[in-house]
C-alpha cells in the first residue's frame, strides 16, 4: 500500500501452528493509527478483559505504526500489547532499535500471537517465508546468547526480538528485548511471550515503506528534523549525556526518591550516579535507533573492580532505581545491575524499585537474612547486584522478587511499602515534589508510569513552558493533552523523545502526508484521546483498581528540600482531571464520551 502501512498482518495460532496472512483492518488503522493504538484495538476486539494474562486467551500483539520504518525521524518503534500479568491492565510496551522497521520491510504491519504452543518455538520471517521453528535448543538461554544463536541460524542480517529464562519462568516484569539491548520493557510483555512458549521472532525484509504524498512528506520530515536539530535538548543535550543527565536536575528540585522514598527525595551523592559522571568515566560511544538523529543510547563499560562489566545504558530510570532508590552511589554497581536486566530481559525500573522495597522490608524486620539469604541493607551495592541477579535467574528469594514489589510486600504484610500504582512501580520522580507527575502515575492506563504523560517536561525541564512543580493549578488539563499527544506519538511509530523538540504540528503533519489524510491537527490529536479512552474502558472491564497513589505519597510529608512538608495533592487534581476527560466523577468514561469518540 502507499500510505505508510504495509496493509497486511500475520496471525499465528501457536496451539495449532497455523500461520495466516490477513489484510490490515483499514478502518481501525484510520481510527487508532497504529502501534500502541491499533495494537490495543485488535487486542480489545479479540480478547476477554477477564482473561488470565498468562493463559491461552491473552493474545500478544506486536504492532508498528504508519511512520515506523519511514524517513520520519526516530521511526524505529513498535509496541507489544497484551493484558499485563503485573498490573492486570492493558499492557502496551514500546521499543526502538531496528526490529519494528524490519518487520515492515518484510511485508507486515504487525503480528498477532494467539494461544499457547506445546513446545518452545520461534517465529522465522524472511519476507514471504514465515515459519514456526523449534526453539527447544534456545529455551533457558539469555537474551544475548539467544540473539547470537539466531544470527547464526538465520543470518546475521536478521533482526531478533526475544526473551530469556526470566520471561519463560514468569518473572512478572520480564520484557521483550530486541536488537539485544532495546526493550519493550514494562508490564511483563516478556512473561506473556514466555507463557506462550514463544522464545523469539527473527525477521528480515527486503521491501520498503511507501507513503501517500512523498513530496509533501519529505517537506514535513525536513521541517521536523530541522526543529530537532535546532532544539538544545534533541539537537545536542540528549546525545551528549543520555537520559542520565536528569539525575542532578531532578535531585535539584528535591524529587529523586531515596531509599524507597522513605527518606525523602534529596540524594546527597546524586552527582556520583549522574549523566555527567557516566559520560566522564564510563562512556564508550553513543548508540541510536533506526533513523534517529538524537542517538540517546550509550555503550558503557566498567573497566575494573567488583562490578567490571560492559553493555548498554543505564537510562535515567535505572540509574535511579538501582542508585538513589536503594541508597547506592556506586555507578559501577548501578551499571552492572542494569546490564543484567538487559541480558535477562527484565524491566530495570520495577527491578530496582523491588530491591529498594525489599531493603525497606529488611530494615523494619519484615524480612530477615534467613528469607533473603544475605543481609540486604540500604546502600549495600553488592547486595543490590546479587538480589538483581537472583531475580534474573529465578533463584531463592529472587523468585519472590520476580513477582514485583507489591506482591512481595503484601506477602510480608506491608503492601503499603510497595511504591507502585496498580502494582507497577513508579519511576524516578517523587510525586510529592512534582505534583503533576503524581497525577500521571495515578491515572496512567498501565499503572505507575512516567511515559504516558511526561509532566516532568513542563514541571522540571520547562518544556514547552515552565510550570511550578509544587502547585496543582492547570496540571489536570495539561496532563490530559500530554497523555493524548503521547498516545498519538506512540501509535504513529516515532519515539516519544522527539516531543522535546517537536509537537502536534509536526507529528500530525508527518502522519497526514504519510497516510494521505486531510484531517486537521485537532482531528488527529483526537485519535490519541480515542486510544486513551479505549485503554481505560478495557481496564474498567478488567476490574482494575481505582486511580490512586501509595499512602506514602499521600500522607508522609517530605522531610527536606524545596518540597519539604509536602505530600501529593492527588484529590485536588483528580476531579478536575476526570472533568477534563469528560468522565464521571469516579473516573469512568461516559457512554456519551465513548460515542463521541466512535469507540464501539
Amino acid at each position, binding site marked *: 500500500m502507499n500510505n505508510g502501512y504495509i496493509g497486511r498482518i500475520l496471525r499465528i495460532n501457536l496451539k495449532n501452528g497455523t500461520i495466516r496472512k490477513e489484510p490490515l483492518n483499514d478502518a481501525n488503522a484510520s481510527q487508532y493509527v497504529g502501534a500502541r493504538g491499533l495494537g490495543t484495538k485488535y487486542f480489545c476486539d479479540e480478547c476477554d478483559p477477564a482473561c488470565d494474562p498468562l493463559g491461552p486467551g491473552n493474545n500478544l500483539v506486536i504492532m508498528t505504526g504508519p511512520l515506523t520504518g519511514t524517513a520520519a525521524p526516530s521511526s524505529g518503534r513498535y509496541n507489544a500489547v497484551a493484558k499485563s500479568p503485573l498490573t492486570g491492565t492493558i499492557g502496551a510496551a514500546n521499543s526502538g532499535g531496528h526490529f519494528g522497521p524490519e518487520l515492515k520491510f518484510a511485508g507486515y504491519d504487525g503480528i498477532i500471537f494467539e494461544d499457547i504452543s506445546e513446545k518452545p518455538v520461534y517465529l522465522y520471517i524472511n519476507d514471504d517465508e514465515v515459519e514456526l521453528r523449534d526453539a527447544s535448543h534456545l529455551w533457558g538461554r539469555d537474551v544475548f546468547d539467544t540473539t547470537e544463536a539466531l544470527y547464526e541460524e538465520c543470518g546475521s542480517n536478521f533482526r531478533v526480538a526475544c526473551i530469556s529464562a526470566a520471561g519463560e519462568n514468569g518473572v512478572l516484569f520480564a520484557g521483550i528485548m530486541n536488537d539485544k539491548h532495546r526493550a519493550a520493557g514494562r508490564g511483563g510483555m516478556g512473561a506473556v511471550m514466555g507463557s506462550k512458549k514463544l522464545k523469539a521472532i527473527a525477521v528480515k525484509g527486503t521491501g520498503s515503506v511507501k507513503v501517500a504524498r512523498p513530496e509533501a512528506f519529505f517537506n514535513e520530515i525536513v521541517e521536523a528534523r530541522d526543529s530537532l536539530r535546532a532544539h538544545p535538548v534533541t539537537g545536542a543535550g540528549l546525545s551528549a549525556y543520555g537520559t542520565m543527565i536528569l539525575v542532578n536536575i531532578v535531585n535539584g528540585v528535591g524529587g529523586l526518591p531515596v531509599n524507597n522514598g522513605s527518606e525523602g527525595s534529596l540524594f546527597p551523592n546524586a552527582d556520583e550516579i549522574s549523566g555527567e559522571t557516566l559520560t566522564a568515566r564510563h562512556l564508550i560511544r553513543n548508540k541510536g535507533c533506526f533513523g534517529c538523529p538524537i542517538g540517546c543510547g550509550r555503550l558503557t563499560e566498567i573497566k575494573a573492580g567488583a562490578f567490571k562489566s560492559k553493555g548498554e545504558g543505564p537510562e535515567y530510570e535505572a540509574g535511579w532505581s538501582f542508585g538513589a532508590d536503594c541508597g547506592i552511589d556506586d555507578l559501577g554497581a548501578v551499571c552492572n545491575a542494569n546490564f543484567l536486566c538487559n541480558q535477562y530481559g527484565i524491566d530495570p525500573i520495577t527491578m530496582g524499585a523491588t530491591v529498594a522495597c525489599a531493603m525497606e522490608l529488611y530494615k523494619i524486620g519484615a524480612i530477615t537474612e534467613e528469607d533473603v539469604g544475605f543481609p540486604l541493607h540500604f546502600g549495600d551495592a553488592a547486595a543490590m547486584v546479587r538480589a538483581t541477579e537472583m531475580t534474573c535467574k529465578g533463584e531463592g528469594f529472587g523468585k519472590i522478587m520476580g513477582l514485583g514489589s507489591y506482591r512481595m510486600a503484601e506477602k510480608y504484610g506491608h503492601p503499603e511499602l510497595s511504591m507502585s500504582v496498580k502494582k507497577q512501580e513508579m519511576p524516578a520522580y517523587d510525586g510529592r515534589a512534582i505534583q503533576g507527575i503524581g497525577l500521571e502515575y495515578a491515572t496512567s492506563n498501565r499503572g505507575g508510569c512516567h511515559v504516558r504523560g*511526561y509532566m516532568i517536561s513542563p514541571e522540571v525541564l520547562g518544556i514547552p513552558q515552565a510550570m511550578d512543580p509544587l502547585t496543582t493549578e492547570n496540571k489536570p488539563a495539561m496532563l490530559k493533552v500530554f497523555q493524548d499527544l503521547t498516545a498519538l506519538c506512540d501509535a504513529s511509530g516515532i519515539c516519544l523523545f522527539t516531543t522535546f523538540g517537536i509537537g502536534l504540528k509536526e507529528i500530525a503533519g508527518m502522519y497526514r502526508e504519510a497516510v494521505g489524510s486531510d484531517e486537521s491537527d485537532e482531528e488527529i490529536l483526537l485519535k490519541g484521546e480515542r486510544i486513551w479512552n479505549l485503554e481505560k474502558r478495557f481496564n474498567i472491564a478488567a476490574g482494575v483498581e481505582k486511580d490512586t497513589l501509595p499512602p506514602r505519597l499521600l500522607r508522609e510529608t517530605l522531610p527536606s528540600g524545596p518540597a519539604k512538608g509536602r505530600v501529593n495533592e492527588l484529590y485536588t487534581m483528580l476531579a478536575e482531571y476526570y472533568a477534563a476527560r469528560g468522565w464521571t466523577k469516579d473516573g469512568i468514561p461516559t457512554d456519551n464520551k465513548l460515542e463521541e469518540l466512535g469507540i464501539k
Partner: protein
Amino acid sequence: MTIRFFAYYRDPEYTGRKEMTMAAPHTVRDLGDALCSQFGSPFAEEFFNSGRTAPGDRIIIMINGRRVEFLDGLDTLLRESDVVQLFPVVAGG
C-alpha cells in the same frame, strides 16, 4: 554562597567548574553579571535573555531548588546560605 554547574556548563570552554563559592551578590541579576564577566563567552551568552528581563532560553537557574521564574525572577534577592544551581536545558526520561 555556593554555585553549582551542571552538564556542559562544567566544560572548560564554559566555566571549567563543578562548584564555586562567592560572597552573595544582591540579586540574581547581579550574580549573572558577576559570572558573565568572570567566565566570558560562551557562558556569557547563556545567562540572560536578550532584554535582560529573564533567564536566557537555554539556562535553568535554581535557588535552593526553585527556578527563579517561580521566585522574583532576576530580581530575586540572594543570601549567603543560598545554593544556586545552573543547568543548561536538558531532558531525558
